């Protein structure tokens, strides 16, 4: 199952390559890069020496957070929220460094993963709010970004409690519930590939972002 999940990441770059030339936005490219990088990383992780796995896991959390956050950074338009994302990301990375240098953990870096999940959920909620406020003439599910957000939500929702509690589970339970997170991960990869397809099928709709400034028209 582990390798199926690992190779499922390749669906994203494959879809990207098949539809190449028609994708002008940054987001599909970021998704394709994410698929290649994480597939390679997961395969390498299985063969990596045990003493560096702790760092690999922390780096995985960091990389995953960075990719997802960058995608929402590109999709969200409100400047204040973008600054908030930068600030929260800075705090998150600082916390991760503190965590990896000061804490020992049995299996996974549960607390940074928990914080990552909560932050990403906040970004997704805001993204949905902004999207539904700005776009009224396009069905939300015809927009590629909707499927990215849903994919991330299913993945985070399906794995949040597992990663939070993983250090207090026995091996049988980890194997049993691990499969559930694998399913969520495969669904996420499929939805990412679908989002690239949606991007091609329904080219990006420009969300109007205007508010005019009326010049001086006083009675002088």
């Amino acid at each position, binding site marked *: 199952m582990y390798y199926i999940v690992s190779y499922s990441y390749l669906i994203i770059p494959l879809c990207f390559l098949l539809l190449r030339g028609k994708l002008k936005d940054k987001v599909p490219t970021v998704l394709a890069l994410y698929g290649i990088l994480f597939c390679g990383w997961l395969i390498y992780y299985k063969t990596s020496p045990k003493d560096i796995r702790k760092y690999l896991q922390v780096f995985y959390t960091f990389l995953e957070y960075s990719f997802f956050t960058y995608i929402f950074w590109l999709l969200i338009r409100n400047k204040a929220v973008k600054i908030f994302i930068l600030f929260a990301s800075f705090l998150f990375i600082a916390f991760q460094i503190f965590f990896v240098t000061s804490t020992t953990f049995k299996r996974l870096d549960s607390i940074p993963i928990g914080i990552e999940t909560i932050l990403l959920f906040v970004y997704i909620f805001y993204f949905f709010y902004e999207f539904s406020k700005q776009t009224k*003439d396009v*069905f939300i599910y015809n927009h590629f970004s909707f499927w990215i957000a849903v994919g991330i939500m*299913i993945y985070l*929702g399906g794995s*949040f*409690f597992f990663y939070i*509690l993983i250090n207090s589970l026995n091996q049988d339970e980890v194997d049993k*519930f691990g499969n559930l997170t694998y399913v969520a991960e495969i669904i996420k990869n499929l939805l990412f590939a679908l989002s690239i397809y949606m991007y091609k099928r329904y080219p990006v709709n420009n969300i109007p972002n205007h508010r*005019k400034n009326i*010049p001086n028209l006083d009675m002088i």
Partner: protein
Amino acid sequence: MFLLQATNSSTTTALFLGTIGMLVLTIGLVVFIIMHQRRVQRFQQKLQQMEIEQQKMMLNASIKMQEEERQRLAADLHDDAGPLLATARLYLNENLVNQDKVNQLQSIFQARQIIDDTIQLIRNISHDLMPPTLKNFGLESAINDLFQKISGSGTVNASQRFHDYKDRLKPEKELLVFRIVQELINNILKHSNSSFIHLTQNVHADKFYLRIHHDGRGIVQSDFEKLNKSNIGLGLKNIGSRIRLLQGEILFEKDISQTYYKVTIEVPKDEPYSS
């Protein structure tokens, strides 16, 4: 051992329920967003439908206005120019019949007077159709002329200030803007009972702005929209259709001080037009 088992079992229960809960939350949120958007879209469609209806009404109003204008023109020509020219013809006819030099001169003089009056009449009709100041000197001068005439009457103090009108709008656009201003001023004079009217112009980015202030009774945006949808307010409907033609916007509001009413017109500028 029992305690350990109990703890473990509660952890797995929490994990199971938590995961299910998160997934339900995710699906719930997605469904909510889709349903909400569909509702918004249905509302949007309704609005579009209403907009189409309103456009139809505006089109009807514009046709009606055109017909009225034609009728007025026909009446002016038939009732004023027609009899004048017929009278001139009579005088000239008399010239052919009457051989007396004095009478002939008198009738030629009378005919010339009548022809002069007719020329003036036709000039007035033509000025009504297309003000020469607007055609020759542009919107600023035409509005200035209009305001001077209003101020000249002595009842209303009308003034205007153009902040930045180096780049003139295209003549078609100027005419449409002028007609809107004329209609607004007519309405103000007819209904508002105001003592002053002030017009200000400015530009910002790629937009041209005009604002009219007056201190009488006025309307706000909701009134304008209501009147636009109703069967009355033909003039306002014409303003609406002209604004639509210009791809601009119009905003009726009351000043913060609650003393003045203001109407702001926003029109997209095109490439500079040199007169």
